[in-house]
């Protein structure tokens, strides 16, 4: 009986199988990697805004407190976007003619809201409440990052369930004195963890925070 396949056919067959397996593993790894990549999480991606507002300048440079613009962060679920009037408190005096600020003036004139692009956005089935986090001393940087170093606002953390759970399951290390929550650069605190390593645990006790309950579904989903 004549050979059906050449001797090299086996080599080719085995290579093919190997390649197939590799591609399989590869694609799995790729999908996994993609979900964590900033393409999926949008971490570090800047979005075009009607006005190129620089947190770096206003927060880092001028040292304006977060709450000056995000007025309701302490009392409401939402931090709140600044009303045009808040911008104009200063910019009716400074840079009054700056073309960059035209949309602000236009908004004030036409009484139409400025349409900002959301950067830190959670799905609608997630109910995040700013006020309680502030009250417990979870600093803004924990989720929003060093906005004082962001010329244009970008997402600092992957807002995935895993990210929320990590903190909810072990809040202690992230807690600060509530009066320091809006403080961006607190390197002396952050650089010497041993000096305040007890603080978090004490606060967790003081507030009666029970991480075992904080990862329950109804904490965030309704």
């Amino acid at each position, binding site marked *: 009986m004549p050979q059906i396949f050449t001797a090299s056919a086996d080599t080719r067959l085995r290579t093919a199988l190997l390649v197939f397996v590799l591609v399989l593993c590869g694609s799995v790894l790729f999908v996994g990697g993609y979900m964590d990549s900033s393409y999926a999480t949008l971490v570090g991606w800047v979005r075009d805004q009607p006005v190129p507002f620089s947190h770096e300048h206003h927060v880092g440079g001028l040292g304006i407190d977060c709450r000056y613009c995000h007025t309701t962060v302490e009392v409401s679920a*939402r931090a709140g976007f600044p009303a045009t009037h808040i911008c104009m408190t200063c910019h009716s005096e400074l840079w009054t003619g700056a073309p960059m600020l035209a949309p602000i003036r236009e908004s004030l004139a036409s009484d139409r809201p400025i349409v*900002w692009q959301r950067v830190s956005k959670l799905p609608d089935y997630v109910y995040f409440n700013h006020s309680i986090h502030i009250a417990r001393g979870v600093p803004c940087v924990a989720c929003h990052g060093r906005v004082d170093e962001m010329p244009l606002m970008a997402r600092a953390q992957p807002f995935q369930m895993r990210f929320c759970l990590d903190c909810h399951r072990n809040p202690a290390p992230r807690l600060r004195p509530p009066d320091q929550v809006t403080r961006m650069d607190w390197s002396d605190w952050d650089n010497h963890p041993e000096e305040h390593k007890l603080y978090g645990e004490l606060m967790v006790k003081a507030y009666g925070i029970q991480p075992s309950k904080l990862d329950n579904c109804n904490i965030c989903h*309704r």
Partner: protein
Amino acid sequence: MAGENRNDPIAAMRSHLRGKTGRAFWRSLDELADTAAFRTFLEAEFPPLSGPSDIDRRSMLKVMAASLALAGLTGCGGSPDQTALPYVEAPEFVVPGKPKWYATAVTLGGFVLPALGKTHVGRPVKLEGNRDHPASGGATDAFLQASLLGLYDPDRSQSPRILGRPTSWSSFDAAITAGAAELDRRQGEGFRLLTGSVTSPTMLRQIEALLSRWAQARWHVLEPINDDLALEAARRVFARPLDRHLMLDVAEVVISLDDDFLGPGPRQSVQARRWSTRRLAFQERRGDSRLFVAEPTPSLTGAMAEDRLIASPSRVEALGYAIAAALGVDGASAPELADEERRWVDRAVAALRKTPGKTLLTVGPQHSAELQALGLLCNERIGALGATLRFTDPIAAIPPDGIRSLDMLAQDMAAGRVTTLAVVGANPAYTAPVAPDFRAAMEKVPLRLHVGLHYDETASLSHWHVPLAHELESWSDARAVDGTASIQQPLIRPFYDVRPLHVVMDNLVGSLGGSDRDRVQETWRASWGESFDGRWRNALVRGFVEASAAPFVASAVADRSVPPHRDVQRTGLTVVFRPDPTIWDGRFASNPWLQETPKQLTKITWGNVILVSPALAKERRLQNGDVLQLEAGGRTLTGPAWIMPGQEANTVTVTLGYGRTHAGRVGSNLGYDAFAIRTSDSAWRIEGAALSSTGKKEIIATTQAHQALDGFDFVRTVGQPDAAGSRPDTVPGPNAAGEQNSQPPSFYPTREWDSPSWGMAIDLDLCIGCNACVVACMAENNVPVVGKELVAEGRQMHWLRIDQYYEGDPAQPKSYFQPVPCMHCEQAPCEMGCPVNAAVHSFDGLNLQVYNRCVGTRTCSSFCPYKVRRFNWFDYTGDDPEELRAARNPDVTIRSRGVMEKCTYCVQRISEARIAAKIEGRAIRDGDVVTACQQACPTRAITFGDVIDPETQVSRRKASPRNYSLLEEANTRPRTTYLARIESTGGGAEDGTG
């Protein structure tokens, strides 16, 4: 088919196995009648290609997707989620994400239903009862809960029309000023104003102004469901019209002659609250609470009665005379009574005599003035006047011609004496009696003007139509049934191009411009003078004007003459009219929430039926859904039959409000129009009617196919306020056996719960099945409406349903209500069934449904013994119109297609309370969390709270010996438990009667 033959083998087999026979059950009337409903189900469910056609059928709701930019709604950040729209100038005190509450009111039949409006960034999302209100004390009803949706109704009229064609306000202004000038010249001759019942001081002020300006003008009132006969009766007895007020919180014994005082209507929440006050006291053995009812057709009051007698309207009259005679009312002669009637009268009178001064006899306001007058005399005999029955001057203004008001108008129009007819907030073309023929007469009027929320039947008959602003978006005032005045303040700026009532009223007399706010303030400034500012603010904050309730008047009997009892010879059937329990006289026809709310006793949605008695059905071989032709007084209507247990044998009941032709895309062309046979002199009852079958069948969308309790112990009853709940005919569960809170054994570890851990107790002794909780739940939790066809297929979405059961002989059964939310079982089968952790348990005892994790295997529902879970078979919310999106509660997730949903114990309110408590650094207090259903309940039947803390209200109720859990034998350890209904009264039991 399963009927009797189904149960005999059971009985036989059990007698073999258990050595004792089961009791003889009767199953649903349908099975007696060869499962008609299931056949209709079958027809309902077997349209081939049901898929796409389902979508089409639902389009009735979907076409609402009117695309319009809503000026009032764009600023709410609710727009496509990627963008954020901050305020330009942040309004003071408005915190995005935090709701604000405003005290206001909606009205029904002119009377105030006091409400607190919850708004998110200026958008009303929920109405709740006003706890401070002297009359309601926070009680609400389905109408109050649902009127929020009326605000967002996409079918509301949105521009003035002339001859049906939309036109501009300017052209209307031009026309109306010209017309007014003309009328000024003619002293208003030929001008007629037709309104609904009016309690609003401002409205009255404007009407008086109009009438004084035009001496010849005349004002008429049309309120299809009114108290005219009651006022007439008062006029007979007291020589002046008086409003009656039932002091049900005082009355320990109430005899109701066909008076459904717990039933739907403007007085429901107030009277139900009073009744529950008495009932609660009685539960603590403070005084008695007994209710005797004689009625031709089942009512909520009858369902709560300890002793219910089925009597035709004419027999009700006879009973009235018999009681009067027994009480010794002069001139009252006892007519012939059947034994059963005789015994009932004896029991009733005995009860009346027992606690003088604390008894009350009430006659249905739909009965003849003679009978009601007799009732008043009886009350005088038993010392009820001024005690359990008190009077005030009429709260609603009485038009010049009083009871004949509408007939006069019809005559004048027919005689051509009317040149201009202005209809404000009424719909005579639909609700006016057919005789005298109002519509025909109306055609004769040269200029017809309609002012209303919708372009309705009357509008279509009018030259001009003027769109009104909704109560929740305009300023007004009105009085509650006790006379307490409320200032209605808008919760939102009108988002259609419409005008407020009081502005239009002034437009009529040619004065343009000005705001409704000024006009209302004008009214009150007049009466308050100096102290206006303070009192105005106070009225707005509290939701009512302090101490504005009408004072009770001493009621001296002027005329004791008793008209002789005329015993009508019954020929044929008796037709009785009733308002529809969910859409009233049709004014709520375009409200999907109310349309989909099951009628309390029939569980029918999206339509009305002709109620016939089981006996009549048997005699005529009728089945549910058979289309009948009803001939009464020479007029006919056709509608589907519904066999009503407890209906008087030869009485058929028709309900008003359906069969509308101009009720928008939701409400038009549903059911039959009972106004078509209603004349002004037989407005509530027609004798000598005839019934014939058309041989057709109609699909009836009901949410409960089977209402026979069959001796199961789902609803338990006790004889004593503090007895353990059980039914004599069922094996009592552990609770019934007296060992409270003893849990049946289980394989699973018993978990220790920290406080707070939530639970609910529902007192079946208080629940009157009014549906307020059902609608409140829909409003709070964004529960979608699915439409008639899907309801007929068993796909309604109500998270909270009220099961209605009959027990006993179908001719005169006992009737029970049982609200069934999710039980939040501690050992929940649903959770065990879910493969993806979408149904899980929380640390505070909630049975959670995580919509965004659900993949829709529906195992949870298969495993749920209570079948309280609801599934999104289609995308029910995707193409909701902008308005309905605006009505949604932003604190509750909108469920997508293919996910399971169910009662959450209002988890959003729990979270809110928990976070608030944490920020304030305190524990959650009892009462911090009030679920929507609990808040809505007029009788305080629902309590909710922490079941670990023994001091909470709910713990105290659960400690009651009447406490039991539904389907204990399933051992699911429900968090929602029930308190057994008390069947005979403590007082009665003490001295052996009752």
